[in-house]
């Protein structure tokens, strides 16, 4: 199995799907001649030419809507956003058009489109460029929200997202593109959407996370909990935030009776709050402790490195929360 960077895994997924289906194309800011702001699409212009991968003006509403319109009539666009934070200027195209036209037309239309790019806090970019958009999109019926945490998952989930007939919000992180991992070379390698991955089985507590927080701190915290505190953690990587894989989560809590959710969102109305709402009632009788939710501080994201670090979940915060639900 070849080893590659997460950015290369994304590129492989797009390249394979473009070769498989003539209707798949890529557009976004700097994706073609510049080879991608983060070099995800490097070399793809040479390979596919300017009809199938092209640069757009800085017009998020314009090109997001272009994608939706083209998907309504049979194309399968992949739209790269330089940052998911920038989609605040084109929410209408995603929420009102991509997510709603199928329903509003009584099922006459489908919108097979992938919106992808870096999401969340990516180190000293300031408040405007650090939005964690998952809770904005994961609450919208009509959308599918996917968030990979490894290079292999990035490839398998992106390929499934491209083949899916629904609009997919694909949340990457600029801080994960250099991650290295084994990635299946098989061009038919796909991962299901709407299915979580039990990354580590355990019996004491269920820890739920996804994407960047999982990669940045949760895995380290789980290691520490297991090795230093003797707590047998079951770690769930959600992979898909909408639709939520409730059966996998509930089966785990039925076993562990304890649960901690970790993300980098704001707590109030955050992604974890939504997950908590979904599980607290069906899991109530199985729980031996209230569910804990570790999230970022509820402030705009500060520029200063130390302040930024301090606002986010840390290994210490996670260890403390897990010990608390375990009454240890």
């Amino acid at each position, binding site marked *: 199995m070849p080893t590659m960077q997460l950015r290369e895994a994304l590129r492989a997924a797009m390249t394979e799907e473009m070769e498989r289906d003539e209707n798949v194309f890529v557009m976004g800011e700097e994706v073609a001649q510049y080879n991608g702001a983060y070099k995800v699409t490097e070399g793809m212009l040479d390979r596919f030419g300017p009809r199938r991968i092209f640069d757009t003006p800085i017009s998020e509403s314009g090109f997001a809507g272009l994608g939706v319109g*083209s998907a*309504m009539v049979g*194309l399968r666009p992949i739209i790269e956003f330089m940052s998911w934070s920038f989609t605040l200027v084109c929410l209408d195209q995603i929420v009102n*058009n991509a997510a709603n036209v199928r329903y509003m037309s009584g099922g006459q239309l489908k919108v097979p489109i992938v919106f992808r790019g870096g999401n969340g806090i990516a180190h000293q970019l300031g408040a405007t460029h650090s939005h964690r958009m998952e809770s904005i999109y994961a609450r919208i019926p*009509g959308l599918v929200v996917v968030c990979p945490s490894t290079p292999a998952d990035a490839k398998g989930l992106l390929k499934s997202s491209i083949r899916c007939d629904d609009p997919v919000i694909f949340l990457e992180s600029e801080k994960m593109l250099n991650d290295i991992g084994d990635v299946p070379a098989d061009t038919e390698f796909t991962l299901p959407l709407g299915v979580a991955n039990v990354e580590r089985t355990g019996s004491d507590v269920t820890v739920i996370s996804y994407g960047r927080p999982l990669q940045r701190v949760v895995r380290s915290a789980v290691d520490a909990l297991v090795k230093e505190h003797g707590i047998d953690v079951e770690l769930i990587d959600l992979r898909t935030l909408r639709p939520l894989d409730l059966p996998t989560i509930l089966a785990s809590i039925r076993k562990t009776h304890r649960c901690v959710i970790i993300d980098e969102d704001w707590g109030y109305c955050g992604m974890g709050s939504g997950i908590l709402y979904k599980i607290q009632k069906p899991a109530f009788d199985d729980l031996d402790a209230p569910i804990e939710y570790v999230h970022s501080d509820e402030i705009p994201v500060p520029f200063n490195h130390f302040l930024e670090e301090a606002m986010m979940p840390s290994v210490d915060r996670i260890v403390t929360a897990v010990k608390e639900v375990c009454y240890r």
Partner: protein
Amino acid sequence: MSVANEVAIRPAGSNGNGAATANGIAAGPRVTVSESVGQLERDRLRMMMLIRRFEEKTYQEYTKPGQKIGGFCHLYSGQEAIAVGTAALFDKSRDYLITGYRCHGASLAMGMPPRAAMAEMFGKATGCSKGKGGSMHLFDVKVGNLGGHGIVGGQLPLGLGTAFAQWYKKTGGVTFCFMGDGAINQGTFNEALNMASLMKVPCIYVVENNGVAMGTQVERSSAEKDLALRAAGFAMPHYHVDGNDVDTVIAEFGKAVELARKGGGPSYIVADTYRFRGHSMSDAMKYRTREEAEKAKTRDPISLYEMRLLEKKLITQELIEQISEEVAEAVNEAVRQADEDPHPALEDRFNDALAEKYPYQPK
């Protein structure tokens, strides 16, 4: 034209659902215009009259006690020549139309049965969108009608996208993307028109300029009073047409269609018109003077077209009256059917949000 061809004109006779009207040849008055000559023109007049009648009936249904039409509702009365002129140029096998929330006229002109449109406004299961869209969101995808869209200007990038798909697949099709004069002040106007021209996609942006965005006149919303000039920075043809004259609409829109079909890129056309009704049903139109409204009536697109067809002897007054009765009957029948039609099953509210079943595993 032989004498033998001069026959009583059978009413084009459709109530829009494909069912013949009660008024057949025998019942119709004998007229002395040819069946073959002028049929297209008479059909266009009929469609304009159908739209007008439909909208006036919609007004009645909305305002009468026991109101059956919920939500927002925006009538097309006065703007019929634009929709019908567009339909005359439209190739249903490859063209697309996408518009804003004032979408009843375009939908009927593209062939939506009045019953499907009225049932949608009643929220019925037989509505074009199964009761899930409503007045602002009439869709008829199989004929290329990609919908009414409720957010002002939200459809402009979608039209860019459908035109892009036509370019990408080299279908030779064109997209008509309609907007009101209010939409040109949205940011999407700048983004979509710039990209359409940059990418030379076959999109015809049509401003249905009825002079007022809800209650704010163009003079109060646009720094540039000449709305055609608002597209002067996009390197595409931009011009006004008399949106109340269906022949002019066909001729002038036709130039844009020809340009787009041969790969010459987009156009921007301001079709100047007037809406006889308010912005929506709650609008008392206090921003208008009686004089202005009276003057507009002298430019009623239906009267103008009737006079032209009479002058050209393509129609008779009797036939106009007959058509008027027929469209009234067709609209009444549509209301009657829509009224009887069932509401969607409550369980149906969960359908049509997503196309795939989840968990989703690609084949």
